[in-house]
């Protein structure tokens, strides 16, 4: 009897460990992720602006995406890596598949998980065509030899394997807002939930850093400590679709205050989008459930 209990316990431990290993194993994109699509660098410039890559990976005094900007959080400080076209320090030596796998699955060429400070959980919803276009655009940007700086993250968050559990719990490429009643709202949903990754800052997070999607875009604590990131849900914001589109183009609020903080760089990006795309973002936001 006693022996039986121990055996059962042993089997249980092995099973849990097995599930744990399976769950924490990095899940890559299928090898066919970019099959049949040809990247176009000019279109990729629009994807690049909508996805805001330069806002985090940009560096002072260079056009290259040399990285280095610090992002404080309750889990530690993350430093944007060099994703310039430099062959050794940047992504110049990566294949298109390796880039797509990083952007949409959060898995590095070495098969390690990235921290979700990199918003791959949003980019997971990116189309294959946009991914290919974005990669083609990234390859047109200059190289910089500055090495990436290591993240300053303490135990247990410094165990990258544990991020597999985080992804299992919180990452999903399903749409947050399931209904898209018009093509315009559907386009807006893609721009907000996939490329623009607006929810990463404007949605509150739980103790483990997972987004509370039941409070989608309803404002959040500032991970760097000071102030709050405002709600952009229509119940709280109270702006018309036209107000939102004007703000994303000009930076002016309806009462002629102007954009501030990190959002300044976001508006620099949204100002580069087509009018239809700004209108689509606005249509999605005012239609939020």
């Amino acid at each position, binding site marked *: 009897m006693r022996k039986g209990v121990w055996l059962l316990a042993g089997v249980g431990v092995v099973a849990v460990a097995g599930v744990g290993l399976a769950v924490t194993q990095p899940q890559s994109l299928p090898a066919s992720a970019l099959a049949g699509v040809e990247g176009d660098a000019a279109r990729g410039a629009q994807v690049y602006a909508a996805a805001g890559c330069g806002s985090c990976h940009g560096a002072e005094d260079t056009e290259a995406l040399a990285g280095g900007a610090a992002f404080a959080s309750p889990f530690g400080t993350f430093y944007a890596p060099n994703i310039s076209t430099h062959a050794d320090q940047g992504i110049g030596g990566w294949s298109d598949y390796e880039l797509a796998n990083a952007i949409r699955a959060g898995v590095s060429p070495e098969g390690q998980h990235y921290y979700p400070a990199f918003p791959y959980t949003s980019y997971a919803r990116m189309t294959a065509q946009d991914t290919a276009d974005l990669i083609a655009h990234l390859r047109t940007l200059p190289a910089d030899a500055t090495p990436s700086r290591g993240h300053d993250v303490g135990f247990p968050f410094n165990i990258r394997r544990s991020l597999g559990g985080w992804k299992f719990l919180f990452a999903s490429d399903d749409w947050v807002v399931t209904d898209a009643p018009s093509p315009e709202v559907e386009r807006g949903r893609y721009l907000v939930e996939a490329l623009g990754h607006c929810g990463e800052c404007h949605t509150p997070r739980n103790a483990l850093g997972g987004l509370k999607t039941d409070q989608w875009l309803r404002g959040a604590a500032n991970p760097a400590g*000071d102030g709050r990131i405002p709600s952009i849900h229509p119940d709280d914001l109270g702006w018309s679709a036209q107000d939102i589109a004007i703000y994303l183009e000009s930076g002016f609020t309806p009462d002629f205050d102007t954009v501030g*903080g*990190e959002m300044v760089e976001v508006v620099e990006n949204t*100002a580069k989008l087509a009018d239809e795309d700004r209108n689509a973002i606005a249509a999605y936001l005012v239609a939020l459930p």
Partner: protein
Amino acid sequence: MKSLPLLAGLATLALGTLVHADAHSNLPPAVKARQAHMQLYAHNLGVLGGMAQEKIDYDAAAASAAAANLAALAQLDQSSYWPEGTDNGAIEGTRALPAIWTDFDGVMTASEGLIEASAAMSDVAGDGLDALKGAMRPLGQACSACHQDYRQRDN
């Protein structure tokens, strides 16, 4: 008998006014002054922006007047608006970040940017709607240059 609810209503109103006045009067005069200064920017920007966004008809005289006000406001000496100990960590009711006091050169660069952008607007605001629209974006960017680094996020 009828006067009782009325009295209660008046008392509530009076209390509300008192509470409101109290919250406002707790701010140091210098903070009130700089917030009023920002309001004057916003009011004059509203005239120009309303035209740029084609919400109100373009009027060369009104545009020129608003732009001249902005340019004059941007040039006013604001040094007395920003006494030590009036950042958002020290007092309630302001979003002025401590960086204003630790990065004086950066603040002055941003302030010179606004002087330039508002002067450029003043030069062209009376020259037609397209000219006004063209000067609007640099003006907004000049405002944001300060709001990016020196103002707390929304609360």
